[in-house]
């Protein structure tokens, strides 16, 4: 029990991933972070900062050039075969675009049940269907959808199906790669709240990737900020949001529009004072 608490659920150690090509870009450069049990870590940064590549390395879709990914202390970058599959099962992923992350030729029942089938969790057809209904309920969908195909659902519903599909194999950690970025704004909040609920109910850990700082603030206790392949700042939510140490984090926070003009001015007067001064000088 004690050791389980001490070993983080997920640990990324010095991950490096370079994409071949003329430029040879280092998409991920010496990235390290940990996610503890039940914790939600937000990974923020602009597009091209290496967030998604990091996520894909952790999920096992990409093989890092160097560095390690440890799941509950077990190195999955070196593991092979059955042991790897069993460990990998503990980490599942929800993709950005629910329009392309669901096989269009499979019904909801097949999609959600596939993980249970391939891992032999629920080999019996009928019981697997029952479990699928339960999972759909967990994500807020009714059992009447079981035999429908993804094309008959809205973006939000599809993302719920994708979440149920990931939950089916009983993961400890969910990697969410911009899971609401391609959804309508009105639906985003619902799906975000679902992630929050799941974390509470199932004790799920989250590695939540987003470019939207508000989304991360809402959901994650800890935040890591990435810029051009590196983690430039990492810490508790309040600390990162209220007193950012790295200039990139500051720039990122300043870029968030504030709906209240008075608050906007106050912020400019405070944190962005230097910036405004320069601006005035230029005008003159």
């Amino acid at each position: 029990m004690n050791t389980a608490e001490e070993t983080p659920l997920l640990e990324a150690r010095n991950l490096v991933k370079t994409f071949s090509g003329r430029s040879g870009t280092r998409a991920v450069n010496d990235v390290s972070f940990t996610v503890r049990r039940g914790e939600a870590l937000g990974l923020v940064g602009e597009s091209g900062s290496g967030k998604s590549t990091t996520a894909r390395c952790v999920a096992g879709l990409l093989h890092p050039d160097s560095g390690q990914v440890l799941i509950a202390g077990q190195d999955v970058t070196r593991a092979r075969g059955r042991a790897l599959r069993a460990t990998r099962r503990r980490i599942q992923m929800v993709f950005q675009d629910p329009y392309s992350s669901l096989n269009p030729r499979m019904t909801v029942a097949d999609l959600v049940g596939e993980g249970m089938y391939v891992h032999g969790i629920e080999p019996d057809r009928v019981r697997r269907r029952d479990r699928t209904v339960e999972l759909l309920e967990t994500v807020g969908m009714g059992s009447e959808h079981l035999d429908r195909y993804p094309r008959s659902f809205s973006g939000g519903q599809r993302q719920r199906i994708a979440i149920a599909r990931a939950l089916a194999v009983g993961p400890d950690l969910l990697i969410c790669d911009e899971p609401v970025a391609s959804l309508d704004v009105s639906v985003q909040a619902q799906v975000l709240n679902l992630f929050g609920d799941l974390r509470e109910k199932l004790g799920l850990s989250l590695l939540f990737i987003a470019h939207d700082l508000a989304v991360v603030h809402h959901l994650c206790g800890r935040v890591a900020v990435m810029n051009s392949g590196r983690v430039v700042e990492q810490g508790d939510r309040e600390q990162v949001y209220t007193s950012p140490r790295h200039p990139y984090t500051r720039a990122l926070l300043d870029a968030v529009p504030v709906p209240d003009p008075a608050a906007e001015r106050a912020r400019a007067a405070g944190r962005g004072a230097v910036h405004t001064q320069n601006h005035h000088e230029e005008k003159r």
Partner: protein
Amino acid sequence: MSTTTPVPTRSAGLRNLLTRKGGNKQGHTTFVDRAALGVAGLMVLLALVGPYLAPMDPYAVDLAKSLTPPGSEHWMGTDANGRDILSRVLAGGRTTILATVAVIAVATVIGTLIGTAAALGGRIVDEILMRICDVGLSLPAIVVALGLAAAMGPSLQSAVIALAATWWPGYARLVRTLVRETRDAEFVESARVLGVSRTRLVLRHVLPNSLSALYVQTTLDVSAVMLVISGLSFVGVGAQVPASEWGAMIAASRDTAITAWWTVLFPGLAIALTAIAFNLVGDWLRVRTDPTLRTGGR
């Protein structure tokens, strides 16, 4: 688009395909399409039961009735040997259509296997298989058929083998391109994260979402293959003389074509009609399965 229209179950899929409403651009089934579907269906039926429908023995020689024009007794007349042409056209449909289907089926299976292996097997495998395809593509079907006929003796079998051997590289190329597209799709990655085995990944996720363009291509190719088979029979390396195969029938009647038009017209008509029908069905299928025209999703 976020349509929430009820979606057909698998069995209703075909019905939906047939009755989908909308302008012609959205794949509205026109009269011509229906006619083509009807003729194509009829030809398939002919391949199954044609020989049993023949009113007379397609091989019965009756020299007394040689070259009888079409009339009440012989609706399509008789050939130089006095054989009933209607019976021969009906019986010949089976030979021609089955040979065509055999070529397409063999070429599709080989093409799919090779194409999938090339797309998923890594760069070296891909290079080797594609160079083999290049060799195959550079060989003209007729030349291979002539060579095989010389080696194995002229027969319909050697024509079918020669055609299948020269036809699959085209399919391998097509399948390779289609699978490479699907391979990187997000739903394939999602299945990989889930821990789906390689075999299941290919069979359940990659191939079903790759092959609709292949089905269209094979339908369109039916007419082309049939014309080549008939052509080979006409040249003399396909079906052999007494056999009632459409191309062979035309070949056997070429001396009488000027004086007795019916000996070549009816088998020729059968070839042309079937070829046109399958071509139209292929076109119709292409519009129908075009992903940009699908309802729902994007």
